């Protein structure tokens, strides 16, 4: 991939810096499928696991890719205004072998920054082609003490990649004595997922974390308030998108959640108000979206780390609202 060509570029341009970085460094012989993240491996800079594209060809299932070469322009055209809907399902444009069994998709997750840190919420329904595979799944996975990630897309893929990310971040922390920033973790995840682009792997994660020390790592307080706090939010998708922002919602229920959040989220919310907005957004999305439902999980990431609110069943909320509106249900 790109790193491969960087090595070849080295040979062409100047000199071979280390004999270890030869023309075939990427795990084809021993079956060891990872590469060190940089050709300058003896400098001991970064050792990250980034899967090599060749590994995909050796796998018996081939991760949903078919040969021959995906023709240019026949694949998903970004300029086409005919968008597939709902966004939670895999795009029909990629040419793939049929999956061996239906994968779990469809969710509502959201996260936003406010003065008290990062507020994260998600539903708990895992759906699988129209049936509820698990009504009590966990879509917000803690990665380390100050970073949580929401999962959307294929549950299995998300769970796996979160664990791989957690491993890599922990190794970095042990080697270098400090934590990777949220946007750095997002970049790492995006690079790890890039070789799988064009396959059926589907991960839409929002990484929500607190960077730096308790004071937010000494940023310039003269700028807007969000640069003083260490709260940070980054959306990563398996198609390669990586966006840093202050408010994201991902999943088939995300448009419903966005409309609630766009009205209610402000920087100055108290923790209780922010919790209420997050919960309301998930509740409205679960009401309208068939693939979201059951309970809601709410987490908050602050300088002390992440804290979790007890899981709440939204069925009760629906009945309470019916009461409030004067329509007591039977």
């Amino acid at each position, binding site marked *: *991939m*790109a790193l491969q*060509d*960087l090595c070849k*570029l080295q040979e062409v*341009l*100047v000199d071979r810096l280390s004999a270890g970085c030869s023309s075939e460094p990427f795990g084809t012989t021993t079956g060891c499928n990872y590469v060190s993240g940089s050709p300058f491996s003896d400098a001991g800079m970064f050792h990250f696991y980034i899967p090599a*594209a060749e590994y995909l060809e050796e796998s018996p299932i081939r991760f949903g890719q078919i040969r021959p*070469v*995906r023709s*240019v*322009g026949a*694949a*998903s055209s*970004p*300029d086409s*205004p005919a*968008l*597939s*809907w709902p*966004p939670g399902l895999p795009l029909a444009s990629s040419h793939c072998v049929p999956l061996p069994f239906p994968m779990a998709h469809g969710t509502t997750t959201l996260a936003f920054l406010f003065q008290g840190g990062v507020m994260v919420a998600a539903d708990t329904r895992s759906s699988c082609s129209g049936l509820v595979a698990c009504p009590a799944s966990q879509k917000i996975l803690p990665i380390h003490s100050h970073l949580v990630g929401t999962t959307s897309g294929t549950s299995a893929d998300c769970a796996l990649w979160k664990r791989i990310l957690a491993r890599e971040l922990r190794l970095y922390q042990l080697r270098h004595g400090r934590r990777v920033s949220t946007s750095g973790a997002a970049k790492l995840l*995006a690079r790890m997922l*890039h070789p799988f*682009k*064009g396959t059926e792997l589907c991960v839409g994660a929002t990484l929500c974390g607190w960077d730096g020390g308790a004071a937010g790592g000494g940023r310039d307080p003269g700028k807007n308030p969000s640069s003083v706090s260490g709260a940070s939010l980054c*959306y990563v*998708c398996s*198609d*390669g*998108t*990586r*966006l840093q*922002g202050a408010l*994201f919602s991902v999943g088939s229920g*995300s*448009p419903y959640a*966005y409309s609630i959040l766009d009205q209610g989220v402000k920087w100055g919310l108290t923790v209780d108000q922010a919790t209420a907005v997050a919960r309301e957004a998930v509740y409205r999305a679960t009401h309208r979206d068939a693939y979201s439902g059951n309970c809601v999980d709410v987490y908050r990431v602050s300088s002390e780390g992440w804290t979790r609110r007890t899981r709440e069943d939204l069925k009760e909320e629906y009945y309470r609202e019916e009461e409030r509106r004067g329509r007591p249900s039977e």
Partner: protein
Amino acid sequence: MEYLIGIQGPDFVLVAADNVAANSILQMKHDADKMFKLSEKILLLCVGEAGDTAQFAEYIQKNVQLYKMRNGYELSPSAAANFTRKNLADYLRSRTPYHVNLLLAGYDDTDGPGLYYMDYLSALAKAPFAAHGYGAFLTLSILDQHYRPDLTRDEAVDLLKKCIEELRKRFILNLPSFTVRVIDKEGIHDLETLTSGPK
């Protein structure tokens, strides 16, 4: 969905890009920056398929910087454009082509300003003005009509505003704001973000 435009003057290049990062029908980000700084006087504007844009543009960006570190001097805009095109062409017939459309704008101390148009099939053309995206269909004829090689900076910004006004009026999608930058012999300068007002 996305829009890029570049206008070359006698001693500057004016470039603008929209600020929307979209996913399906949603605007995920309203302040996305689609310009990548390759060196002190070269900007790469990159739109296209979701992950490919950042991956490819950052790859080019780091390689251009690496060249400077190794050799002590920077790549000229023309050399950077040809390097970018070569990479696009090499990946085009691989298993993983990059679906990106690019504008490369730069100022060379010997050759002056330059604007290079590149598309996802790795075509490369040096042009006095260029645009990418559906918006290009609506605005290229405005550029054809009003462009002169001896535009001043203010006239170029007015021409840009005419193009954005046409998009606001006729383009079905909402592109509320645009990042605008100018490259001249002093380097890259940010101009005021242009917003299209209410209809």
